């Protein structure tokens, strides 16, 4: 399987994912916004499908996804906050029954010589909580705990 360029936790509340695709930006963009295409790849864990993918692709518009396997069903509602065509999508994600885990996701698209790199930043807290989190001393104190996570991730996926 093609490796990701990056999977990291740049801040204690952010996950950053970077992945390159051998396709021009227009196609990668379409694959992220057209339900019939999304249903073919965003199916999640093994044995799951994405039977529901409804997207109202405009700022303020919502999207609804439901993943299913024989035992299990999980839904997620998204809302688009910002859309810059072929460049950036910012949306919120709330999984059913897990409001505490709601996140803001920024997906950026960059094309270089026919290849497209996407960067996804999943931010797990709202701005107010982030501002509080970034008080002096916080990052230093938290670095130690996150080094543990980095090691775990490196071990698991190396």
């Amino acid at each position, binding site marked *: *399987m*093609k*490796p*990701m360029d990056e*999977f990291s*936790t740049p801040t*204690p509340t952010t*996950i950053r*994912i970077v*992945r390159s*695709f*051998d*396709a021009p930006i227009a*196609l*990668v963009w*379409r*694959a992220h916004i057209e339900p019939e*295409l999304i249903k*073919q*790849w*965003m*199916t*999640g*864990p*093994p044995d799951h499908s994405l039977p529901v993918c409804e997207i109202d692709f405009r700022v303020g518009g919502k999207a609804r996804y439901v993943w299913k396997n024989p035992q299990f069903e999980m839904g997620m509602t998204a809302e688009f906050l910002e859309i810059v065509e072929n460049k950036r999508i910012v949306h919120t994600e709330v999984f059913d029954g*897990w409001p*505490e*885990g709601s996140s803001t996701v920024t997906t950026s698209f960059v094309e270089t010589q026919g290849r497209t790199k996407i960067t996804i930043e999943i931010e*797990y*807290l709202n701005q107010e*909580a982030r501002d*509080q*989190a970034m*008080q002096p*001393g*916080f990052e*230093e*104190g*938290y*670095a*130690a*705990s996150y080094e*543990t*996570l980095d090691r*775990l*991730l490196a071990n*698991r*996926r190396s």
Partner: protein
Amino acid sequence: MELLDRTIVALADPTRRRIVGRLARGTATVSELVRCFDLTQPTISSHLKVLERSGLISRSRVAQTRPCKLEPEGLHALGYWLGELRSVYEENYARLDQVLERLKNQTEGPKP
């Protein structure tokens, strides 16, 4: 609520993350944490309860004090969750590679 959910909820609060950050450098008593964060003892205690229920910290009893200690297992659960998330993205993107190949063939191929 699953233990992992409790871990994530526990870490969703900035004060609790700072407490975890402090405990990553070594055990501390409630009164040490009160001084460290300039919060009241009841506030610190309520945060410690949440952290203890999530499995992120444990508290022993030494004379009149209850030193708090970080429990790596709680963070392991979070690491496992991140690992699962990573797998999902890797598998999704492997499928997206195939979708893009098909789209490229459609757009490059002869027009109907």
